[in-house]
């Protein structure tokens, strides 16, 4: 188990390095970060030279990257060009807000997806299963931004015009003057979280259903039935235990992916999170912010993958407990589906 995690870590480090370097190259390619400052007539040439010095702008790109990486690892992420605030502060604040959205989404989605996935697997081909399948197709095919607009159209505009009520808000985190009001916060969070949940629930419930079906079709479930184990216990004790392993892994990985999805939602709902910081910085060529942001996002994704691997290792005894009799344990991936035996011998 320890060796397993160590091996994964060993691959993760070069991946982070390569990814951040690519990002670094991309950022350098977007042009001269000081272009705005240079063209301002009031700028002192001395200031420009100092800035060039500070960001090593005249060095070759590899050297610049090494400098930046050194600073980044030590927690010195520089100062924003556009706000003059330390990048750490800007990102820290926004990260908390994004975490609020992503965390809520993950918790709610796990709950709903597990429920939907398990019920539709246990009652395969029932009306519920078909409805869940239909919903999944809807979720897979609906672009988030369009769904967000539809939600606004129905839940905000239509409600306001027909009933003159404002249940949900579409801008920011709080209404001005209501800061700290929990109810107001929830009213602001409902639509962005619902938008994010559309895809996560569609994907995860589908995943849980398929993994549950695979398990239910496996030989050891038949063994348990032949022992006389009641169906409810088979589902809870034998099937769920094995079907949850891949599910938890996918949730961990997808939490990293959600960070990419949250930028769209934050932009639409003007949510003061990481996505908003990123796009504002990108539009203003705010070089230190963009760099730190993308590097962090990459690290976060790699971390989520690592967590997924560790969880998998912890949950699956085939990895956690090494083999006693045979040689090195062959790591078995998700439970393989045994094809349904129609013409069994």
């Amino acid at each position: 188990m320890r060796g397993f995690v160590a091996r994964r870590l060993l691959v993760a480090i070069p991946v982070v390095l390569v990814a951040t370097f690519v990002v670094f190259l991309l950022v350098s390619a977007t042009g001269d970060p000081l272009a705005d400052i240079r063209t301002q007539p009031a700028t002192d040439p001395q200031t420009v030279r100092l800035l060039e010095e500070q960001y090593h702008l005249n060095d070759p790109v590899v050297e610049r990257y090494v400098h930046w990486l050194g600073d980044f690892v030590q927690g010195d992420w520089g100062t924003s060009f556009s706000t003059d605030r330390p990048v750490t502060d800007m990102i820290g604040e926004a990260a908390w807000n994004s975490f609020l959205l992503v965390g809520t989404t993950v918790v709610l989605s796990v709950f709903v997806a597990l429920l939907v996935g398990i019920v539709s697997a246990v009652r395969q081909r029932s009306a519920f299963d078909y409805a869940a399948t239909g919903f999944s197709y809807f979720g897979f095919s609906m672009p988030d931004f369009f769904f967000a607009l539809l939600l606004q159209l129905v839940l905000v505009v239509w409600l306001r015009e027909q009933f003159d009520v404002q249940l949900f808000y579409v801008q920011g985190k709080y209404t001005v003057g209501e800061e700290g009001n929990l109810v107001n916060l929830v009213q602001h969070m409902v639509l962005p979280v619902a938008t994010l949940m559309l895809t996560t629930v569609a994907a995860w419930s589908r995943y849980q259903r398929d993994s549950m079906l695979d398990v239910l079709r496996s030989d050891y479930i038949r063994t348990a039935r032949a022992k006389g184990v009641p169906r409810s216990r088979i589902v809870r004790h034998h099937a769920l235990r094995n079907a949850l392993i891949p599910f938890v892994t996918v949730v961990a990985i997808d939490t990293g992916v959600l960070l990419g999805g949250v930028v769209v939602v934050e932009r639409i709902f003007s949510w003061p999170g990481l996505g908003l910081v990123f796009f504002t910085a990108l539009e203003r060529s705010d070089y230190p912010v963009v760099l730190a942001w993308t590097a962090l996002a990459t690290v976060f994704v790699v971390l989520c993958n690592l967590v997924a691997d560790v969880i998998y290792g912890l949950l699956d005894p085939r990895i956690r407990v090494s083999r006693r009799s045979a040689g090195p344990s062959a790591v078995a991936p998700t439970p393989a589906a045994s094809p349904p035996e129609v013409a069994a011998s």
Partner: protein
Amino acid sequence: MSMRVGDESARTRAESIDPLLVSNEVATPEGRSEWRRAGRRFRRHVPAMLGVAVLVLMAFACFVLVRFVPSPTKLHLAHSYEHPSSSHWFGTDELGRDSFSRVLHGGQISLRIALGVALLSTVVGVVIGSMAGFYGGWLDGLLMRFTDLWIALPALPILALAVSIGTVDLGVFGGIDLGGPLGMTLLLSLLLWGSIARVVRGATLSLREREFVDASRAMGASNARIITRHVLPNCLGPIVVNATLVVAEAILVETTLSFLGFGIQPPTPSWGNLLSDAIGTFEDYWWLTVFPGLAIFVTVLAINFVGDGLRDAIDPRRPVRI
């Protein structure tokens, strides 16, 4: 790379047709009669046939019908913000431009990009996947770990960053605007090859051990020849299914980017930027957002149906869905 969570399930789906996980045998139909049987199963798959019908209609509208509608850039300031009517099916926008025409032209751009991406990323995925599967060992481990993480990277911010570079000079190919249709196709292809690579790797791994591969190796065939002549034709099924799903994915990523303002730039219409044009006024002029949005949704849904139908047809051992 993936744009949204659904893509991890694209990964799941890729795995679910990954022959290695289904059984030790490659699920691809071998031989002509198998393909014919798969074709019959596909034609019986109701949602898939529905999807095909929708796609044919959509393609007809975006590539043929589009020549017979008013120009998408023709201004009629006197007719701004007209409701949908018999003369303007999808209404008109602020400048009196015909929205139906703009949706069709936008669709042409979005579909072209998506098809291009499916083609290119399949090539990239096949090369990487077959190398990993065929040579195995540390190369396989490295390539697949890399693919795993690549699939999970936050695609939208990185793409937005790349697009904001603007035009890059590619030497003999001349300058390419990364925010233009061609640049978009290239960028997305570089990002969406992951699921195909996985599938091809899985299929290659299991095929590598089969007798006909040994036989041709004994006859002195080169690795490249074995891969192109024996391995790839035998995992054609999973490749086609995945390429189909990449089309859906590419449409979603491109329209999202264009919606955010980091993709196709106006006045060139794309389904994504049509929506972002209209977002400020969507409360009053719903038709400007609803029609392009529906176009994306319906197209992607149809592609997903077709993809599932293809998978069920190729691998009948999986229970038929829907």
